[in-house]
C-alpha cells in the first residue's frame, strides 16, 4: 500500500515528522525574509542620522516618540528604533554567518576530499593541521586573530572562516574514506576517469548528508561566535552593528532597568540560533544511517 516515493519526498516526509523541526524551519524562513528585506520592512533606517533625534533616546517599548511614532520595542540611547535596529542587525548577523560558512565549506570540502582521495603525505599534513586546530576552542583562535590583525568586517569573516574550515575537512574526509572503498569508485578508476572527476562528480554526492548536518549547525555556531566577539568589542565595527554589538551597547543600561536595549536583540539572536539548531537536529536524525533499524 505504501506508494514508491522519490528520495526527496521520502526525505521531506521523514523530516516533517518532527513538528519542532517544522516550526524551526518556518521561523528560519521568516528570519531570512526579514534579513533580506530589512530596508523595506523596517519602520525606520536606524543608521540614517538625519532621522534620529537623541531626545527620543531610551524610550521604553510601546512608548511614543516626540514625532508621534510608536516604537514597538523602544529605542536605544541614541534614539534609534530597536525594531529597525534588530532587523538590520539580523541582516548583518545572518549575512556574516552564512558568508563565512560558505567560504569555510568550500575550503574544508576541497581539502578534505583531497586528503581522502590522495592519501599519503597530503592526507597526513592536512589532517595534522586539522587536528591541531580542532583541539583549540574556536573562540580562542578567533580572539587571537582579531587581537593581532585588528577589527573590520573582512577580518571578522576571515576569523570565522579560519575557525570553521577544519570541521568540514574532517567530516568530508571521513565520508570520503568510506566512499573510496566502495565499488563504484573502483569502477570509475578502471574506466580511467580523471581523478578530479571521480572525486567531485562521483564521490562528493555521497559525502553530502553528514556535511549538510555539520554545515547547518556551523551556521548557528558562526552566528553565535560573531555575536560573542562583537559583544566583547572585538568583532563587527560600530558602522555595521550585528546583533552582538547591539546587545553589547545595551549592557551598560541593564543595571538601570532599561533592559530592552539588550534584551530584544538577544531574543532575536536566540530565536534564530534555536531555529537553525532545531532544523539541524532533525536533519541529523533523518540522515543518520546508524539509527535506521
Amino acid at each position, binding site marked *: 500500500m505504501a506508494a514508491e516515493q522519490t528520495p526527496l519526498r521520502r526525505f521531506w516526509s521523514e523530516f516533517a515528522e518532527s513538528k519542532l523541526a517544522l516550526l524551526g524551519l518556518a521561523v528560519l524562513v521568516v528570519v531570512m525574509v526579514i534579513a533580506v528585506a530589512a530596508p523595506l520592512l523596517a519602520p525606520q533606517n536606524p543608521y540614517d542620522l538625519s532621522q534620529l533625534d537623541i531626545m527620543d533616546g531610551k524610550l521604553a517599548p510601546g512608548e511614543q516618540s516626540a514625532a508621534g511614532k510608536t516604537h514597538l520595542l523602544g529605542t536605544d540611547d541614541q534614539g534609534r528604533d530597536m525594531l529597525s535596529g534588530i532587523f538590520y542587525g539580523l541582516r548583518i548577523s545572518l549575512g556574516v554567518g552564512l558568508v563565512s560558512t560558505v567560504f569555510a565549506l568550500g575550503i574544508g570540502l576541497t581539502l578534505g576530499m583531497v586528503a581522502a582521495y590522495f592519501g599519503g603525505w597530503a592526507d597526513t599534513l592536512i589532517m595534522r593541521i586539522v587536528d*591541531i586546530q580542532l583541539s583549540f576552542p574556536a573562540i580562542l583562535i578567533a580572539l587571537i586573530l582579531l587581537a593581532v590583525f585588528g577589527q573590520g568586517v573582512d577580518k571578522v569573516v576571515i576569523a570565522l572562516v579560519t575557525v570553521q574550515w577544519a570541521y568540514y575537512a574532517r567530516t568530508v574526509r571521513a565520508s570520503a574514506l568510506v566512499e573510496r572503498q566502495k565499488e563504484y569508485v573502483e569502477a570509475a578508476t578502471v574506466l580511467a576517469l580523471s581523478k578530479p572527476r571521480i572525486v567531485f562528480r562521483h564521490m562528493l554526492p555521497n559525502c553530502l548528508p553528514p556535511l549538510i548536518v555539520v554545515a547547518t549547525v556551523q551556521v548557528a555556531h558562526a552566528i553565535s561566535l560573531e555575536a560573542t566577539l562583537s559583544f566583547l568589542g572585538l568583532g563587527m565595527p560600530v558602522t555595521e552593528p550585528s546583533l552582538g554589538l547591539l546587545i553589547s551597547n545595551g549592557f551598560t543600561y541593564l543595571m538601570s*532597568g532599561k533592559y530592552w536595549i539588550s534584551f530584544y536583540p538577544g531574543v532575536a539572536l536566540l530565536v534564530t540560533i534555536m531555529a537553525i539548531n532545531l532544523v539541524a537536529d532533525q536533519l541529523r536524525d533523518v540522515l543518520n544511517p546508524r539509527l535506521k533499524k
Partner: protein
Amino acid sequence: MLAYFLRRLSQSALVLLAMSLIVFLGVYAIGNPIDLLVNPQADEVERVRATVALGLDKPLYVQYWTFLKGAVTGDLGRSFVFGVPALDLILSKMPATLELALFAMVLAVFIGIPLGLVAGLKPDSMVGRGIMAFSIVGFSLPTFWVGLILIMFFAVQLGWLPSNGRGDTVLLFGVPVSFLTVDGLSHLFLPAVNLALFKLSLLIRLTRAQVREAVLQDYVKFARAKGLSPSRVIGVHILKNIMIPIVTVIGLEFGSVIAFAIVTESIFAWPGTGKLLIDSINQLDRPVIVAYLMVIVTLFIAINFVVDMVYSLLDPRVRLGQAAGAGH
C-alpha cells in the same frame, strides 16, 4: 603501552614547539614587534633603545632562539599596564579561572549525564522530549546572553545573588579558593551556572546519542536474554560502554571551558585569566596577550595528552591489545 606513551609525549612536545613558532612568527614577523613589546607611550628615543635591548634588530632566527630561551625560563616579557612579568600575572589569575572552570564542569557532568541517560532511554516520552528541548535551548543560547539574563534576573530583579567579582577566599594548599566560604559561593554561583549551561546541553545530547546507539547493540539484547534487571543492563552494561567516549569528551571540553570562561569572566567581572586577556586586548598590553597564548597552548596540549592516556587505559581493547587467534 610504554611505546604509545612515549610516542604521544614526543608528539605533544613537537606540537608545542610548532605552536611556539607560530606565536613567535605572528608576533615578531607579521605584527610589528615594536608595537607589541614596547610601551606605546614611549617616545622615539625610548623605542630605539628598546629595539636594541630587545634584540629586534637581530636576524629572525636569533630572535626566535631568544624567545624560546625566555619562554622556557618563564620570561615572556613585562606587562605594560602593571609592570610585572607577564607570566607571573597570568599565573596569579589562574586559580580563579580554574576554580570557575572546575565548578562549571562538575555541574555540567553531574546534571548533564543523568539527564542524557533518561532522554536516551525514553526518547519519545514527555520527559525525554522535554530534556531534549531544554538541551537545544541551552546549546543555542550564546553564553554571553545567558550571563546577561542571569544578571538581569537574579541580581537586578530579585537581588538574590551578586553579579560581579569574586567572593572571599581562603587558602587551600597555598592556593586561594573561594568556594569554601559562603560569600565565595554566592559569587561563584551565577558565573558557574552560566559557564556550565552550554557544556551541560552538550553532555545531555552526547549521552543521549550514545545511549540510543547502545540500546540497539547486540550485547544489550544478550544481557536482557540473561534475565538481568534493567538497572543492571543500564547501570553496568550500557554505562560502562558509553562512559569511555564521554570521559574523552569531558576531558577535551575542559580546555574549551577555560576558553569560554573568557566571556563569562568579562560579564561577571570575575578576576581570572579571561578577564585579564580581554582587558589586555583593549589596553594593548601585548606581552600579556603573548604570555596568555603560550600558557593556554601548553595547557591544551597537556590536556589532550592526558585525555589520550586516560582513554587508552579505560578501554580494555586498547589497553590489552588485540590477541587474535588466542585459541579456539
